[in-house]
């Protein structure tokens, strides 16, 4: 590593912040773009599993709340792609790579949503898992990204409340409604355990080394389990992992080791709903290409 890069590394590792116009090593820039782009892609792809349920929402209040939640996610994608654009990769290039399957997005958005139970579980637990990571990103060494994370975290906090409210209504409703939640939890537990990524030690994770992430994957997962396992269990719901327990001595959660090969397969586009979702995005882009043309043209 050359001296300048070494100094930069020490700078970010001691809490230094980087702005758009500052010099940065090529490796830092490319890792940054990839990471932030994946986040933007995830927010956008996250819309697709949820949007069907706006029509199906069983009350006007839920319809409004769900529409607002999804709207927030599109807004987040917009903010995030703006940051990527300022780093040199235009939004159209990001979207091209997304629909062609070249770029990755988060594992959870490769899965189908089957019931209203899923809607509650996603808004509550998937968003909770996300906010653990997102709070850590508030300390990202790249300042423009850290700054937008503030707004994103603030908005996500509503989502979690909405999700929890949806779940609470069902677990205090009919037996069928309770079972709907349990069934959804059974299906979403594995994606949730995958969410924070494989347990690579923090100092071997380039994202942590460059302080793009400020916590390791396993630390994030432990934080999620700490916060949410009690909340799940107090509702009388069962987590579908008999090995899940907190070791009193180490204060660490123990669990059945997730299948990391499966995670890799999913994020490279082989999830149950990946192809269908990408096809849908591709189609909608083609349909509205003319709008971009007309809108960006100089006024006649």
């Amino acid at each position, binding site marked *: 590593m050359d001296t300048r890069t070494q100094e930069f590394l020490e700078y970010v590792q001691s809490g230094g912040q980087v702005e758009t116009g500052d010099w940065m090593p090529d490796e830092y820039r490319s890792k940054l773009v990839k990471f932030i782009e994946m986040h933007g892609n995830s927010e956008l792809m996250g819309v697709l599993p949820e949007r069907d*349920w706006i029509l199906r929402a069983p009350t006007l209040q839920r319809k409004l709340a769900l529409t607002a939640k999804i709207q927030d996610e599109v807004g987040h*994608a917009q903010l995030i792609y703006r940051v990527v654009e300022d780093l040199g990769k235009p939004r159209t290039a990001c979207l091209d790579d997304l629909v062609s399957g070249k770029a990755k997005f988060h594992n959870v958005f490769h899965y189908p949503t089957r019931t*209203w139970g899923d809607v509650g579980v996603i808004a509550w637990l998937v968003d909770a898992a996300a906010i653990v990571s997102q709070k850590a990103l508030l300390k990202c060494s790249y300042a423009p990204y850290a700054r937008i994370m503030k707004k994103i975290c603030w908005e996500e906090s509503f989502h979690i409340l909405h999700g929890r409210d949806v779940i609470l209504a069902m677990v205090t409703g009919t037996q069928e409604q309770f079972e709907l939640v349990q069934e959804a939890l059974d299906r979403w537990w594995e994606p949730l355990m995958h969410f924070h990524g494989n347990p690579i030690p923090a100092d071997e994770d380039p994202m942590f080394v460059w302080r793009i992430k400020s916590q390791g994957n396993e630390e994030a997962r432990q934080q999620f389990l700490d916060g949410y396992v009690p909340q799940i269990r107090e509702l009388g719901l069962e987590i579908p992992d008999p090995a899940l327990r907190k070791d009193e001595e180490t204060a660490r959660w123990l669990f059945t080791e997730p299948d990391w090969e499966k995670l890799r397969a999913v994020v490279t586009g082989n999830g149950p709903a990946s192809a269908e979702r990408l096809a849908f995005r591709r189609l909608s882009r083609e349909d509205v290409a003319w709008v971009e043309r007309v809108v960006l043209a100089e006024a006649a």
Partner: protein
Amino acid sequence: MSKRTDLLLSIADDELILGWRNSEWTGIAPFLEEDVAFSSIAQNEIGHARALYELAAAELGTTADELAFDRKPEEYRCAPLVQLRRLEWARTIARHWLYETADEIRLAAIKASDDPEIAGVAAKIDREEAYHRMHAEMWIDRLLASGEGRARLNEAMDELWPYALGVLDDELRPELRRRAEERLGRALPDAEPVPRDVHEAELGELWEEMTMVRRSAPAGSQW
């Protein structure tokens, strides 16, 4: 059903179904900023529907949710214009402008009503819709400013024109025509208005999906 209730349900059903149609663009609008803007418009419309259902519900001794979800498809009073499924941007903008203009004309009449509750809600809706109109006008200007945009918009307007007329009662239709022709700078075709009691096939399909979760639990269940 009283005339008052009939009026309330007509507008509420218009707003509910149009709110859904507009939110169909969520995640797939031409660009992300527009996605966010259009979603707010959709939410406002559902909010308007709710306020109107609540007024009708008080009269009928039921709840807003029951009125929104628990009637049969043939009992809905919405205009055919809002029922059409047209996930195409020129038609979306044309419908957006036509509906907002028709609604403005309709609301002006209702704001003058001597029923204070209805006049009050109408005034609130009208104030919020000022932003919808701003958005629609901006898009009309932009589309008219390019050859391709103008062609697509005009085609969409011609197609939707009979439906737009159907949103309003007889006596308000000439005003809609006057405004639309002025805006587009041309005459619009003579057309038989597609009236309110004609239901498009899309409405039945929409109702099935809209009520599937709700119908999966006994009436009165909490969600």
